[in-house]
């Protein structure tokens, strides 16, 4: 187990290193952040000063080396635009994204799982057809379009829910979140649904596939032959066996939720990391883009690690080794 974790950490650091190299050189190719920053009325020497101050006058490899030495001591550089540490900016915005993604995930599981089980157990019924048809729609509708439609319908025409922003937050047990206020919840509903819809569909499909697969296995048949009632078979034999793969997939999906929140956040003006990073990409605020990508990749790597550990904890057959497969 320890060897496994150590090996993973080493691999992860390698991945992060390569990734930072790619992102760094890629962003450098794009444009010149100075053009975006300096006011056009400024004097030419002002442009040179900014370039010098940000170290942009140096060759890329020198800039990268500086970044790398800084990164080792936990400093990913200051945002060009905000002049503040990129990591601090991300950390500041992250709770909002986390809150959104968590709600979306909870929605995805609490809606997707029961529907998927139902569809898997009654594969030929009308209910299952409707559920599976719905899940195809859920996968097919682009998130942004749905988000905009939801704003039009629920906020503008019906006026039920607010259009954008995060709403009031409150502190509960040390967690600052908008879940704890009515206003916050009202703000959260639309973005969370918007973000979760795709995942609900994924969960439905995964669950259904899992149910169909497990139900065909011998041990289910044997359980029936032992005279166990269907209720018991579903609860005690089917569920644990489908939950293991689903939980592990969900952990990874959580990572993509956070990454995909970018779209939802820009539709609903949700003050999360996604919006920050879109703006950073547009404005070539390289430190933020690099820091964010490193942050997300780290998150993915950690989630992956957690997934493997959860898997080992849930499935008695699996033992962690130094190798993944």
């Amino acid at each position: 187990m320890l060897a496994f974790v150590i090996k993973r950490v080493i691999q992860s650091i390698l991945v992060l290193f390569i990734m930072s190299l790619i992102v760094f050189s890629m962003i450098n190719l794009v444009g010149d952040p100075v053009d975006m920053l300096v006011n056009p009325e400024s004097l030419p020497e002002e442009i040179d000063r900014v370039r010098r101050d940000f170290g942009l006058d140096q060759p890329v490899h020198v800039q990268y080396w500086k970044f790398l030495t800084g990164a080792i001591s936990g400093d990913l550089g200051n945002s060009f635009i905000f002049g503040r540490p990129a990591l601090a900016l991300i950390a500041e915005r992250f709770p909002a994204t986390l809150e959104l993604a968590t709600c979306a995930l909870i929605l995805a599981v609490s809606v997707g799982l029961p529907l998927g089980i139902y569809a898997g157990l009654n594969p030929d019924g009308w209910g299952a057809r409707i559920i599976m048809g719905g899940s195809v729609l859920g996968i097919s509708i682009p998130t942004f379009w749905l988000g905009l439609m939801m704003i039009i319908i629920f906020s503008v025409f019906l006026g039920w829910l607010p259009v954008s922003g995060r709403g009031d937050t409150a502190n509960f047990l040390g967690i600052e979140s908008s879940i704890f206020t009515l206003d916050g919840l009202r703000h959260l509903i639309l973005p969370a649904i918007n973000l979760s819809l795709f995942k609900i569909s994924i969960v439905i499909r995964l669950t259904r596939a899992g149910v169909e697969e497990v139900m065909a296995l011998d041990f289910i048949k044997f359980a029936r032959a032992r005279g166990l009632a269907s209720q018991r078979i579903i609860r005690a034999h089917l569920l644990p066996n489908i939950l293991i793969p689903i939980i592990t997939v969900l952990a990874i999906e959580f990572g993509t939720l956070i990454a995909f929140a970018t779209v939802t956040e820009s539709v609903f003006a949700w003050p999360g990391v996604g919006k920050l990073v879109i703006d950073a990409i547009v404005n070539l605020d390289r430190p933020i883009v690099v820091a964010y990508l490193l942050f997300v990749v780290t998150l993915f790597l950690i989630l992956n690690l957690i997934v493997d550990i959860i898997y080992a904890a849930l499935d008695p057959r699996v033992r962690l080794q130094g190798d993944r497969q």
Partner: protein
Amino acid sequence: MKVSTLKPAIFMTAIAFSLGFSVSSASAENLKVALAAEPTSMDPHYQNLTINNSFATQVYNALVLQDVNQNLLPGLSTSWKPIDDKTWEFKLRAGVKFHNGSAFSAEDVVATMQRAANVPNSPSSFATFTKGKTFKVIDDLTLQISTEKPYPFTPNDMSRISIIDAAFVDATTEDFNTGVASFGTGPFTFTKWLPGDLLEIKRNDHYWGSAVEWDNIIIRPISDGTTRTAALMAGDVDFIERVSPSDLPILESREGISIFKSVSNRLLYLTLHMTDSPIKPYVTDSNDKPIASPFRDVRMRKAVSLAINRKAIAERVMDGLSAPAGQFSPEGYIGYSNNLKPDLYDPEQAKELISAAGYADGFKLTMHGPAGRYSNDTRILEAIAQMLSRVGIDTSVETMPASVFFKRFARGGPDKKPEFTAAMSGYANGSGEPSHPLRIFIHTKQKERGYGPGNRNGYSNSEVDKLIEDGRSSMDIAMGEKAFIEATNVAMQEYALVPIHHEIATWAAREGIVYEHGALDSTFLHYISAKK
């Protein structure tokens, strides 16, 4: 609710308290505003950026203020005058106190000037406005500013720098962001800032000028235009800026919404390359062979201008939110020339000019422009491409994110020269100083003298250059403006740039709120008031 006298210490505590535990109950005196962008910092000297500057005017004052049409008004300085060719004297306002209670004096100005030019990590500093100026304190309320050469625009420059308490001359940008140092003399005090989410300011009850009527203003940044409109319609906010042109009809038809429009000084223009060698093959003949830029010929530039149906763009693309332009300034604005009118749509004459210039067989042109930088920028480009295609210039459009566009626009070609043959860009005069656009875009490029940094098409006319330089060294402002207008006349008739239109700035609010608006498209919150 008016607090007449409050001890500074208590006041400080009150601010500190409100920082930690803000009360967000919605009362009638609170105003909720959605802006298209938020400042990048609460430090008024951190970045010389339009949104930062317009927000800074809420919390801070400069020596000289500008009204919504960029006319200069007394601010922390009550009057100013040149005492010789190289020196301006400013009389300062008496009895002004910073939000933290300390009194304002000439020392604060000197300290501010020192800080403004030297903020570490500033992505765009205010050094431009302090460079070459020496500040001399005569007494508490008198200040002399001297320059190396005669310079008539010192008051304009002074309108750009927010004055802070000398006690915070060494404060960091972070101190301003957290509110530790952000004490100005402006109509509002800074309450809290959750970047990306909201920004709160509170009325300064001790403001020296006319008081504002809102207890608190809550600003939410909503960058998407449709979402902003939806937020107003849904009642989430009371006031929005920059209504999307396409959303205007529905807002206008809706009960309980007022709309404010005015022609702004934001100009959209085409620049056409006019030196010998094409920098990249963005102009080709019908066999796709690169050719030299046809726009060296003034007839071709004129043809392009005549081929553009500005009225159609205003009506069809901008939903009426643009005014056809023939020069940098909109009518009634500094530097406006009465001799210049926007070109009228005349495709026939355009075709004739093209034939006369020898391009009757047509050619292929790729136009470039930024995406999402200006209102409807890509759509305008597309419309222009349609129009040019109709007079025989087979035009295609390439748009890109602003960050990429501006780099290539300025230095994308070989030897770090401008890359595009035809490109669309925008301009708005920030300082209200009339020579500004001429110095940047029209004057022959002379980097070391600070002339022509934005001259990307190689336009050069020594007569125009001389007029600009003369005007800029005359302390007689009226004389100077005449020279600038003359320079503008010549340059525009030679199509140094092809102006398209001035954007019409828009604001919308729920009924009962009025906004005093002018040629600036930024939003100044203290100009929002309740209808009496």
